[in-house]
């Protein structure tokens, strides 16, 4: 197992480097640089030149790439060009927020998806199945940003301003302004309230996909010979489903975990923008616009790393769920 982990991590190195290099190239070829936001009449061109020198942008691309690479291997991500802060700090401010959001969304999505999918598979062909099928497909077809806007419209804007509902969800930010003045219970509640809409809009789309996958997976397992064997023993149907079929059906769904991570991170880019969530996705987009190469590179690097770790976790989960899967056999 240790060998397997090591091998996977080694395999990940060229991938991470590849991603980082790709991003570096894209940014390098792109017109403009980080001084663009200072460009306005009244600003001396010499000052801009000097600023470039201060940022190290006057060096050839190759040198900057190697420097960055070298520094990164030592754990130093450099200094953000647009935020006047070390990249490490910029990331430390945003990464936890993104992780909180995505982890919540993942839990919601997988919990909900697996539950719904199981329900569907057990009632395959029935009204429940069709109902859930249509609903999940509907959510699956929704652009997440639009879903988010509609959720805001209903549960935030209308609920608060028009319908005067006793409960509504904040449409932006991570905590309320008075967060610091609340008791610990209220603080948690406040966080959850802020987390609800963004994580739900992320999770709904994912959950729809997972439910569909789970349904298919479980249906397939339920049609297998050994499920018939289990039924032939005369054990109750729910135990056939839960103890026998579920574990086998969850194996492939676990691999979905790894597959969905990049999708999820793509989603956070949009959702963080819509909900003003101070996370990595938004940071990355902003930094692209500001030509803040060090931040973009570091964020890309982290994203790639997270995805790899996610895939690893997925594989381990799969192996855990299905003892037949030898780790080595999972490497493609």
């Amino acid at each position, binding site marked *: 197992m240790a060998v397997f982990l090591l091998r996977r991590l080694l395999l990940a190195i060229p991938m991470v480097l590849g991603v980082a290099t790709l991003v570096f190239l894209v940014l390098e070829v792109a017109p403009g640089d980080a001084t663009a936001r200072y460009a306005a009449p009244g600003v001396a061109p010499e000052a801009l030149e000097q600023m470039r020198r201060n940022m190290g942008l006057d060096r050839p691309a190759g040198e900057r790439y190697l420097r960055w690479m070298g520094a990164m291997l030592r754990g130093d991500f450099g200094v953000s060009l647009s935020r006047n802060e070390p990249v490490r*700090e910029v990331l430390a401010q945003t990464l936890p927020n993104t992780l909180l959001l995505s982890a919540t969304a993942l839990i919601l999505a997988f919990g909900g998806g697996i539950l719904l999918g199981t329900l569907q598979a057990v009632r395959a062909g029935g009204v429940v199945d069709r109902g859930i099928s249509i609903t999940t497909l509907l959510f699956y077809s929704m652009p997440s940003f639009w879903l988010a806007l509609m959720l805001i419209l209903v549960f935030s804007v209308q609920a608060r301003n028009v319908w005067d509902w006793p409960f509504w969800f904040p*449409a932006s930010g991570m905590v309320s302004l008075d967060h610091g003045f609340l008791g610990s219970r209220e603080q948690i509640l406040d966080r959850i309230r802020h987390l609800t809409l963004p994580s739900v809009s992320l999770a709904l789309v994912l959950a729809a996909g997972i439910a569909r996958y789970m349904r298919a997976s479980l249906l397939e397992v339920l049609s297998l010979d050994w499920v018939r064997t289990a039924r032939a023993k005369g054990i109750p149907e729910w135990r056939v489903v839960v103890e026998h079929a579920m574990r086998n059906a969850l194996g492939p769904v676990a691999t979905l975990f790894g597959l969905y991570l990049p999708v999820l991170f793509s989603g956070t880019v949009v959702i963080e923008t819509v909900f003003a969530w101070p996370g990595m996705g938004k940071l990355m987009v902003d930094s692209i616009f500001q030509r803040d190469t060090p931040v973009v590179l570091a964020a890309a690097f982290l994203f790639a790393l997270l995805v790899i770790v996610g895939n690893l976790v997925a594989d381990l989960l799969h192996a855990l769920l299905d003892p037949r899967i030898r780790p080595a056999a999972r490497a493609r």
Partner: protein
Amino acid sequence: MTETPYRKPGCRAAGPGRTCRMAMLLLFPVLLLGGCGDGGDPAVRALQGLPEFCREVLPRVQAHQATLTQPSGERFGGTAVVGAVGEMADGINAFSLADYTSAQHQTFLNLMTLVRLDESLGFQPYLARSWEFSPDGSEVTFHLRDDVRWHDGEPTTAHDVAFTFLRATDPGTAFPNAAFWSRYREGDEGVEVLDDHTIRFRFQPHAEVLDTWRAMPIMPRHLLEDVAPADLRSHPFGIRCPVGNGPFVFQERRPGQSWSFVRNPEFPEALGGPPYLDRYIFRVIPEQSTLLAELLTGGVDLYVAPTPDQALRIQEEEGLRLLDFDFRSYVFVAWNSRRPQLADPRVRRALTMGINRQEILDGLLMGFGTVADAGVPPFHWAHDPEAGGRVAYDPEGAAALLDEAGWRLEDGGSVRTDAQGNRLEISVKYNTGNQQRQDVAEVMQAQLSRIGVAIRPEVLEWATLVEQINDPVRRDFDGVVLGWVTEFRVDDRDLFHSSGVDQPFHWSGIQDPELDLLLDSLQVVMDREAARPLWQRYQERAVELQPLTYFFYPRRLAGVNERVEGVRMDVRGEWVTVAEWWIPEAARGSPGEG
């Protein structure tokens, strides 16, 4: 998330300490970032993750502030929350001065300038008690107050002023507004500290000398002296632990979310004394609709620059007040006169005349603003409201001008052509993320198509746009929609002076001797009355040549919760009276409950 709650202001409820640990549980890559640690004491933990510099400086500030006695009185107390869309990217670092909001917080909250403006835009003493010019106008001597202290207790002296000047003019700093001192003598030649509270500057005589010292806040020498000029821009001082001398003391910044400041109890009485507010919070909410919602529900007390649509909503709402006031910004399209179809001033004038700017103003800006004709905004003493008489909306006149210039409309055609058969097609670029500019481009396209001009709007992301329009060799645009905030001292030489035609900002590329002469004189004629006719002529000439189509001077808008009293705003900015804001005791409850 099972943390002992602490309620005193200054806690870092969402600070890295807590979130970091939470994240560590989630996934290990966070470990790479480090920065997480343990610490029971909130004050200590608040410092965690901060750079060395801040960990040294902030306790000193706290210690000094703890020694001061807070003022008492019925107006003292409460927290006001200001919400805006954009982060203060440059923070309290005057050496990287760039964005409007940062500049406002520097000059009105945390730092001090030598002089400030009164409501009628006359210069008033601030950090400087008084000043005098030498008779030939080549020297100014400032006498500083002796009762101003940096927030860590150090006195503010002339050495700080000299330090600020020297660093800002040091090329290594890459100070963006170096033009402030373009007529100053270089380095030590330009400045002389006469004593701890007296300082003299030397320069070639020019207009509006004091404006520089209204714009440039003084920075603390004792903290930044050892920092290399090249490192000043990214120094932690700016955004992690600014130490100022203004009415508000920096307390905390949650990156991307908020800045908070508390009262400086020792702010000199002569300058208005300590502010009434206990605490001032600047909150970044990157979504305008959210901001409006927050204002409606009391999440923020003041919404900086709502959209005109939202302004109407704010006006309707009970308990809210809409402030609208003159501003220093304007929106324009710069025409690239290097392009053959735009070389003729008549064409450019026709374009302006073909656009119904008043309708755009009324429709999209809800009438909050005035139509602009030349780059001298209404706040300016030399503003000429009549300058635009000759370019009012007049589609027939515009068509006639175009005919005259040789661009004719064939029967049945929709686009004008010249004798060679070239179509009158103009691409207009604008940048992403600015709704107003996009609106202008779209409306312009629709309106100009009626007089046979084909406008192709092209949206580009800012850095790319900058590269395309600023590169003297490329100048890859026909027209570009831009907008900006001018200084109080209007200086358009970068835009129009023919000597700068190869400089980045000479977008129009026009070269006109009369304009050159006017621009030069405007900068050196020190007497306003003598300068007035020059300004008059300058605006007329700009209208004649139409290097730019000026759209409008939008009025600045702000939505304010009525519980905050004493809020006045004018062209000087939103925060000009922040020290006088106060909240009646009955309305002081914690923010978010209004």
